[in-house]
C-alpha cells in the first residue's frame, strides 16, 4: 500500500539511508484483551475498509473463522480454550501484525522497497515491489505475513496506513463497540495500557500485563493481557526475537564482504596473469624434452 505522504524510517534491501530528516509522532494501537467480547466487528471493518473477501470456509470446531490469517484476512479473532489456575478460560486475541520497531520481515526482505517502515512506526508492504520469495514470513517472529496463492505477493495488516496518513484511526479501532481497541501516540497508548493494570489486578487477574516485547524493539500494536504471565496461551510468543541466524543471514556487512571477496578473485586473476603470464606448453627440443 504505497503512501508517499508518510515519512520513512527504513526500507527493505536499501543501499543508502532513506530520507529521514523529519520526525513524526510514533503511533500505536492498543488492544485491551480484557474488554474484547469477540464480536469480530474489527474483522469486518478490516474487510470493508481494505476491500477484502476471504473464502467462505467450514466450521473447524471453534469460533475462530476463518481458521487462519490469509492474504484476504489481515486480522483475526483467535479463540482458544485454556486451563489457567484450574479454571477453563476462553481467551480471545485479535491477531494481526504488531508493527515491530525492529521488523524481522523488513530485515529478511531482498526486494528493494517492498517493505517500508514509516517514521510513525507502521510497517507496510508495498506489494508492487514484492517478488514473492516469502523471506519476510521466515523473518517474522509472529508468523503474520501471508503469501497469496493468486498473485504470489505477501499481505498483512497495514495499520490502515492510508487512514493514518490523513489523520484517521485504523478501521478496526473505529468500529470496536466496546472500545477494546484504541489508537494514539505510542507514549499515550503505553500509558493507557499501564493504567489499566491495577484495575485488572484488583479484579483477580494478578498477572495482568502489557505485551510490548523488547526483543523486537517494542511493537506498535500493544496488548493488555489479563493472563500476562502466559502470552503463549493466547498464541503470542513469550520472548520474540529476530535471532542470531536471521541477523547473520541478512547481515549487510557480511554480504558486502562476500561480494568484495568474490570480485577480488577476478582482480587477483588479472594481476596473476599480468605478473606470471599464461601457462603454455614450452617449445619441445628435438629429443622431446622440455626446453
Amino acid at each position, binding site marked *: 500500500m504505497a503512501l508517499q505522504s508518510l515519512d520513512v524510517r527504513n526500507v527493505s534491501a536499501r543501499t543508502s539511508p532513506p530520507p529521514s530528516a523529519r520526525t513524526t509522532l510514533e503511533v500505536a494501537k492498543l488492544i485491551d484483551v480484557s474488554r474484547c467480547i469477540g464480536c469480530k466487528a474489527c474483522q469486518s471493518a478490516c474487510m470493508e475498509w481494505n476491500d477484502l473477501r476471504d473464502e467462505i470456509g467450514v466450521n473447524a470446531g471453534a469460533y475462530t473463522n476463518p481458521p487462519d490469517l490469509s492474504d484476504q484476512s489481515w486480522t483475526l479473532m483467535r479463540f482458544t480454550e485454556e486451563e489457567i489456575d484450574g479454571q477453563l478460560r476462553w481467551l480471545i486475541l485479535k491477531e494481526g501484525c504488531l508493527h515491530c520497531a525492529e521488523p524481522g520481515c523488513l530485515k529478511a526482505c531482498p526486494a528493494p522497497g517492498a517493505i517500508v517502515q514509516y517514521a510513525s512506526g507502521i510497517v507496510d508492504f508495498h506489494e508492487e515491489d514484492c517478488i514473492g520469495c*516469502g523471506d519476510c514470513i521466515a523473518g517474522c517472529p509472529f508468523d503474520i505475513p501471508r503469501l497469496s496463492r493468486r498473485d504470489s505477493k505477501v499481505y498483512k495488516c497495514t495499520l490502515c496506513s492510508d487512514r493514518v496518513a490523513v489523520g484517521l484511526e485504523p478501521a478496526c479501532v473505529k468500529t470496536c463497540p466496546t472500545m477494546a481497541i484504541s489508537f494514539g501516540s505510542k507514549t499515550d497508548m503505553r500509558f493507557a495500557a499501564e493504567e489499566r493494570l491495577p484495575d485488572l489486578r484488583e479484579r483477580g487477574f494478578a498477572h495482568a500485563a502489557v505485551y510490548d516485547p523488547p526483543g523486537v524493539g517494542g511493537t506498535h500494536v500493544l496488548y493488555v493481557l489479563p493472563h500476562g504471565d502466559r502470552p503463549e496461551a493466547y498464541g503470542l510468543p513469550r520472548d520474540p526475537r529476530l535471532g542470531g*541466524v536471521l541477523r547473520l543471514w541478512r547481515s549487510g556487512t557480511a554480504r*558486502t564482504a*562476500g561480494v568484495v571477496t568474490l570480485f577480488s578473485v577476478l582482480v587477483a586473476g588479472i594481476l596473476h596473469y599480468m605478473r*606470471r603470464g*599464461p601457462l603454455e*606448453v614450452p617449445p619441445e627440443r628435438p629429443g*622431446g624434452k622440455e626446453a
Partner: protein
Amino acid sequence: MTAPREEVLLRHGNATRVAHWAVAIAFVALFLSGLALFHPFFFWISALFGGGPFLRILHPFAGVALVLVFYPYAAAHLRDNRWLPVDGRWVRNMGAYMRNEHPDVGETHKYNAGQKLMYWSMIPILALLLLTGLLVWQPWIAPHVPAGVRRAAGLLHAVGAFVMFVGIGIHVYAAIWTKGSIDAMIRGTVSGAWARFHHPAWYREMTGREPR
C-alpha cells in the same frame, strides 16, 4: 622418438562438452540471479530476468536444471577424478605451479589434483545448495517448512553459493590461464604436445607412446 607435430587427441567427447556448457549456462544464470537477491547493490540485474518476481520464479528452476545435468555429468567423470598418490605431489608443488615455474608435479592423469579438488568440492556444495534451495522454494515447499529452518536454509544457501562461485571463479581463471584448455572444451581436442606437457600419464593411456 618425437611424435608427429600434427598429433591430435580427443580430450572431451561430444556429450561431455554439451553437458559442460549446459552447466556453464545454468551457472551464469544462477550466479547473476542469485547475486541480484544476495545484495541490493546488484538488484538491477533482475531486469535481465524480466524483473524481480520473474527472477524469483526462474532461479529455482535453473538450479534444478543445473543439478539434473551436473550429477550425471559428474558421475560420468568419477573414474578420472579418483584421488591418486601422484596427486599429492601436485598439491605440494601447487605454489610453484601457480607461479608458472613449471615444477615437476609428477605424471598427471586426465585431471590434475587442482581439477580434482574442484570436482570434489562442487559435489557436496551443489547438494547443499539444492537441499537449502528446495527448503525455501515458494510457493510449493517453503510453506511446509518451519520459519527457523528456512532462516538457517537461507543462511546456508548464501554461504554455499559464495563458496561455490569463488570456486567457479578460480575454475574459469584457471581455464583462461592454461592455454589450450578452453579450445579443448569447445572443439574437444588437444595437441599431443599439450597432452604430453600437462597430462603425461593420460597421453600414455591414450596413445600407448611414452610422453617424454
